[in-house]
């Protein structure tokens, strides 16, 4: 039994199954919903299988075409990739369950093929060990995400999607230019080969600048976050969840991976810059979120703030590598769960009341108790209150900052939490009161409420799983290379 499971190439299936599923949904729209649900569930199983494989055999390698690097493309999965794949599968399943109730027929046939193709691209991205292949996966993901963001065809959705598309294309081209320089400077596009070859040189710094700028734009780090709020706020709820929880994390993952393997060991002051931008993003995003009167925009600005936290790890990792990166990964995972839950809950409220004006939320707590609970639990994780995944992440980050005497960052981390509490309670407070005007309401299917609630539970549960998750991320020691360097 054990041997069969370890022999199945789970990693490859994670890419091919949603790819085939997406095409099948396009061919036969009638079965799209069922197929999508089944395939995202199989995705969860495949990640479990891959995890089993990685835990028993160590890191996962697959030489596509049998050539091996540098001529061919290698797939590679260590603890870090595995966790990203796992969170993608979990959030993805939640989004699928939610979407099965959310979309009407016309939008449903358009949603499923694109959604499965985004899923395939995400999995391919987390498994790739080749910087040009990463470019192609970024494009599949980016174009499909834009199409999904524009799905409703409303004026806001279209302009949000257009801005998103332009930002995406600009980011991709900048990234591709960096790839071109790395290839011509060091003769390879394989990350492992490059890690050995790359030396500090003008080429390397220019490549870092281009790749970094492109990926920072795609990750929406302040001040390149301008495209995120309109796109994330005007998309359909499951798409907002997908964009905020997973798509933004994908480009962050590439940046992190390239930083760990290639650029980080060379030194330089870029990490300080990332830290400063991250700190500003935390404050700016939180303040903007507090100012919003529309719920979806509030949640979108909260994403801008929470992305800032991920970048705080860069300056801290200089002397405390593993711990700072653990904090960043933990924050990314718990934010994925919490933010997906929050957007889905917001979608429920929007559907129930027909609007998302925060001031007019009409006793949502009584009318949609599950949704309100989901929003509150997700809020707990976003604020970083115990017990939650967000708490563990922020605590780890705080500990490192304190140990290094980085008082500025300590203040930012705490202040960001307080501001987050401010905007979460702004919503929850209104949810208890009765609105001045009565609104007509529309029923919300149970699947949609439960999908949001279970994802929020996941974010809380992550607070109790610190030990196993942190031991999992250590497989293949993605953060280890940093330590060896003097």
């Amino acid at each position, binding site marked *: 039994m054990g041997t069969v499971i370890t022999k199945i190439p789970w990693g490859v299936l994670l890419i091919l199954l949603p790819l085939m599923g997406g*095409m099948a949904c396009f061919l036969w729209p009638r079965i799209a919903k069922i197929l999508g649900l089944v395939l995202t569930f199989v995705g969860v199983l495949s990640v479990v299988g891959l995890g089993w494989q990685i835990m028993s055999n160590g890191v996962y390698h697959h030489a596509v075409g049998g050539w091996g690097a540098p001529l061919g493309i290698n797939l590679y999965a260590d603890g870090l990739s595995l966790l990203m794949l796992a969170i993608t599968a979990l959030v993805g399943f939640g989004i699928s369950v939610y979407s099965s109730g959310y979309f009407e027929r016309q939008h449903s046939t358009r949603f499923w093929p*694109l959604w499965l193709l985004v899923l395939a691209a995400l999995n391919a991205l987390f498994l790739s060990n080749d910087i040009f292949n990463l470019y192609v996966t970024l494009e599949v993901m980016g174009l499909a995400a834009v199409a999904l963001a524009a799905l409703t065809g409303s004026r806001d959705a279209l302009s949000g999607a257009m801005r998103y598309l332009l930002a995406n294309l600009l980011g991709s081209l900048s990234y591709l230019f960096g790839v071109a320089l790395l290839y011509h400077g060091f003769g390879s596009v394989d990350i492992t080969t490059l890690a050995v070859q790359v030396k500090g040189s003008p080429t390397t710094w220019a490549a870092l600048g281009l790749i970094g700028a492109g990926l920072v734009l795609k990750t929406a780090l302040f001040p390149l976050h301008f495209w995120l709020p309109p796109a994330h706020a005007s998309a359909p709820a499951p798409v907002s969840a997908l964009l905020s929880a997973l798509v933004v994390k994908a480009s962050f993952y590439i940046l992190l991976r390239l930083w760990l393997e290639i650029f980080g060991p060379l030194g330089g002051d870029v990490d300080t810059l990332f830290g400063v931008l991250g700190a500003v993003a935390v404050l700016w995003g939180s303040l903007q979120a507090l100012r919003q009167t529309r719920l979806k925009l509030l949640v979108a600005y909260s994403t801008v703030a929470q992305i800032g936290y991920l970048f705080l790890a860069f300056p801290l990792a200089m002397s405390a590598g593993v711990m700072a990166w653990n904090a960043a990964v933990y924050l990314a995972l718990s934010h994925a769960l919490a933010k997906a839950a929050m957007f889905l809950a917001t979608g429920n409220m929007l559907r129930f009341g027909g609007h998302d004006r925060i001031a007019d939320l009409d006793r949502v707590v009584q009318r949609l108790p599950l949704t309100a609970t989901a929003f509150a639990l997700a809020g707990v994780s976003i604020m970083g209150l115990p017990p939650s995944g967000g708490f563990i992440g922020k605590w780890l980050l705080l500990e490192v900052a304190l140990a290094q005497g980085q008082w500025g960052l300590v203040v930012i981390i705490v202040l960001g939490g307080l501001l987050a509490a401010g905007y979460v309670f702004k919503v929850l407070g209104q949810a208890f009161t009765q609105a001045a005007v009565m609104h007509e309401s529309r029923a919300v299917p149970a699947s949609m409420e439960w999908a949001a609630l279970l994802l929020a539970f996941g974010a809380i549960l992550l607070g109790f799983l610190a030990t196993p998750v942190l031991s999992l991320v250590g497989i293949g020691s993605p953060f280890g290379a940093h330590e060896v360097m003097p």
Partner: protein
Amino acid sequence: MLQWALDALLGLGLLWLAWCALMSPNLLKAIVLFVAFGLLMALAWVRLDAPDIALAEAAIGAGLTGALLLAALARLRFAYADEETVGSPAQEEAKVRFPQWLPAVPLLLVVAGLGYVVLSLPPYATGLSTEVTANLESSGVSNPVTAVLLNFRGYDTLLELVVLLVALLGVWSLDGLALGRETAPGPVLDTLSRFLTPVFILVAAYLLWVGAHAPGGAFQAGSVLGAAGVLLLLAGWRFRAGLTELPLRLVLVAGPGAFVIVALVTMLMEGQLLEYSPEQASILILFLETTATFSIGATLAALFFGGRPQDDKEHT
């Protein structure tokens, strides 16, 4: 010396055309200049010993992108007229948001920096060409570019076909404004398209076949096929009602679909994704290229058409 003058003239021409296309106050002019820019790019690819890219650029860069842009411009003016905001060229004029020189300053620094970096690269570097040459024998084809695209880095190509499909899904899900019917094409255009279509198909077939050992291949063949579709659409030809549903979608999916199936089968037989056994490599590559050609051609033509074809049926 002459060589150098030719390259310098081409380079300057490229820069000049790009600048004029981007800064022209008139949109039609901008597009015409951009098409001319594409033509010069193709010449530059030839000078750089990249005939495969020159073929792709001639078909896509200068041909299909130009047609796409022209069609979009036409519909844009139509949309203006719809909203009863007068479609005067004044609206199309290059509106500038803030002082033009403001972003120019940091960008000049970017040019200087990147220029310095490019010049600092060593004048000789083999890249992966030695590895490609060493393994070309067992790749199943003798054109190194095709070997990279379909064998060594075939996985990229699979995902690239998915990018095309995603773009089409996006356009369809947006309810793009399908190409409307217009005035009768007239006998000349009719005859032209009747005569040229078989030529396009022959050239596509030739490029597909020749790609194994000389410049050419699925993308070039597919784009020529797509261009044939565009010409037919322009001449007033429309999808027959029965063919717009599943049959059309099957053709669109055939390329990436065949790729995924081959990937799975080769993995079961050889152990790795897309690992061809050397004896079967050339036949597998030909199969993949053929299906890809049909899909690329159909997708490009459908992208030009703009909307879901059945919409057209419903409206008429």
